[in-house]
C-alpha cells in the first residue's frame, strides 16, 4: 500500500497536537489527500480532521480544555490591551512581531490583573515565555529567538471563537438585529 508524501510527519505532527500550516510543504500533501486522512484518523483513533484554507489540525472527543481556555484568555487580554493602546489589533495579530517585553507591559498594566494573577500560564513574565513555547510547539506562534514571536494563521481559531461568542451575545441582547456578521 502506498501512503501520501510526508505521511509519517503529517501523522506525528497532528498527533502531537500541532497545527499544520499552509506555509508548510506537508500541508499540500494533507490537503490533496484530505479524504484519506479524514478516514485514516477517524478509523484509527476516532479523531476528526479539521482542514481550513490555511491550516489543519485534528480533534479528539476529549480535548485539552484548560490549554484552550488559557489561549483564549491570552488572546482576549492581548487584543483588548492592543486596542486600548490605539492599535488595529487584528492587523497586529496578523502581521506584527511581538516582543515579550511589550507583552509584559500590557499584561502587567492590564485591568484584568485578577484573571492574570490567577492563571499559572500567564501570571508572570517567565510563565508567559513558557506559555509561548507551548504555543510554538503547537505551531500557533512562531518564535524568533527568545525575545520575539509572531502568530501563525492558527490564531483564527481563537479570533473566530470570539466573533461567534459575540454573535451569540448580540443576537440575545437585541433580537431585532437580524444581520449576520
Amino acid at each position, binding site marked *: 500500500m502506498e501512503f501520501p508524501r510526508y505521511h509519517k510527519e503529517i501523522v506525528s505532527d*497532528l*498527533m*502531537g*497536537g500541532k497545527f499544520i500550516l499552509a506555509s508548510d510543504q506537508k500541508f499540500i500533501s494533507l490537503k490533496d489527500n484530505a479524504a484519506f486522512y479524514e478516514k485514516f484518523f477517524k478509523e484509527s*483513533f476516532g*479523531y476528526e480532521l479539521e482542514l481550513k484554507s490555511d491550516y489543519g*489540525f*485534528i*480533534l*479528539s472527543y*476529549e*480535548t*485539552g*480544555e484548560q*490549554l*484552550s*481556555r488559557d*489561549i*483564549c*484568555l491570552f*488572546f*482576549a*487580554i492581548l*487584543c*483588548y490591551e492592543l*486596542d486600548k493602546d490605539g492599535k*488595529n*489589533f*487584528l492587523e497586529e495579530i496578523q502581521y506584527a512581531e511581538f516582543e515579550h517585553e511589550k507583552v509584559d507591559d500590557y499584561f502587567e498594566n492590564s485591568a*484584568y490583573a485578577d*484573571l492574570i494573577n490567577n492563571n499559572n500560564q500567564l501570571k508572570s513574565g517567565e510563565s508567559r515565555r513558557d506559555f509561548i513555547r507551548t504555543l510554538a510547539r*503547537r505551531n500557533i506562534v512562531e518564535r524568533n529567538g527568545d525575545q520575539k514571536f509572531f502568530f501563525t494563521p492558527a490564531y483564527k*481559531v*481563537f*479570533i*473566530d*471563537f*470570539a*466573533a*461567534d*461568542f*459575540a*454573535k451569540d*451575545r*448580540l443576537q440575545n*441582547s*437585541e433580537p431585532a*438585529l437580524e*444581520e449576520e*456578521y
Partner: protein
Amino acid sequence: MIKAEPKTILNFLSNYFEVLKDIFDVQKESGQIRKEKLNEIFKDRDENVLQQLLDYKILKKLGDDFEFRDTYFKLFEFILNEFRPLLPETIQKYERSIGVLFKKIRDGINGDKLILGQRILDLHGEIKEFSEAVEKNTIRLLAETRELKSNVDKLDYMEKVRKASFWIDYYITPLNNILDINHAESITNKLFEISNYVNIRRLNFDDELIRLQFEKLYVFLVQSNDDLLRQSKLLTNELLPLIERIRTESVILTGFIEFLKAPHKAKVPKVFKVERQYPYSNDMYLNAREFVQQFLQDETIFLEDPNALSDKWVFNKDLYKEKLMQQLPLDSFFDWAGLTLRGEYQTIETDKLFALTALLFEDGISIEVDLKQERSLIRTSQMNLRVPKIKINRYGIS
C-alpha cells in the same frame, strides 16, 4: 418681502455667526428649534436677534417653534461641511427624474426646440443635484466612520458594532450600489448612456443653440462621471474597508470582553489533547503498574548462608550411646546430658538436649524414675527446663 439690503443680511450672518451656528446645531440635532431652546441660546450668548432672524427670513415660525429656511440651512451645511446624510432611497429618486427627462429628450429630439432646450437644462440641474447629494453623503459617511474609529462618544464595542452595521447596511452598501458602474441598474450606468447620446448630439444636431446646450451638458457629464467614479472609489477603497474593519474588530472585542467576564463558564474552542497511544489495551498500563507495585514494598529479606547447611548439627546416636554406656550407672540422666553437651559445645542447646533423650529408649539400659523426688533445673541457651531425675543402670548381658 425681505426687509433688508442683501449686504445687510450678509453682514448680519457674519456678525452673529456664533449664535446662528448654535441654532443650526439644534436644528441638525432635533429637526426643529424649540422656543425655549432658542431663548436659552440667546441668553448664553447674551444676544437676542429673533426679530432680525424673522425679518431677514432666515428662520421661519412654526407655531411656537422655529426652523431654518431651507436656503440658509443648506448654506450652513455647506460652509460648515456638516451634511445630514441622505438615505440612499432619497438619492434613488434622481434615477427616476433623470431617466424620465432623458427619455423625453430622446423621444422629442425632433420636436419643439424650446421644450427640448428646457429639458436639457432641467436634466443638467437634476444631475447636478444628484452628484452633489452623493458627494455630501460620502463626506458625511467618512466623517461618521472616522468618528466611530476614534470613538469620541466612548461607545462600548457592542454599540460600535451596531452603529457600524447601521451605516454599512442602510447607507454605504446601497449608496455603493447606486454608484457601482458594473451594476446595470445603477445611476452611474444611466449617466454613461446619457453621456454617449449627448456626445453624438453635440456634434450632429442641426440647431446651433441646442447643439451648444448639448455641448455644455456633455462637458458637465464628463466631469460628473469623473466625480462619481471618485466617490465610488472612495466608498469601496476607503470607507467600506474602514467601517468593515471597525465592525469586525468590535465584534471580536465584544466577544473577548464577554468571555473575560466569566472565562471559566464559556465553551472554548477544541484543542487536541496529546496522549500516548498503545497498540494494546488502554488498561494495560494500569494493570502493569499494579503488578509491579506489589514488588515495590520494602521488606527485609534474609538470605541463608549456604555454608550453614553443612554445619547443621546431626545427632549421632551411636556415639552418644557409647558415651552413655561408659558412664553407667547414672544418678541423673539430664545432669549427664547437660554436662556432656556443655563439655563439647560450651552451651546447652534445647534441641540437642532433646535429641539426647532419644537414648532413654535404647536397649541395654534400665530406667528408674521417682516422680516424688524434686526436679532439677537445666538452663539451655533458649530456656530453663525443669526435668525429673532419671536413674539409669546397665541392663541385660551387654
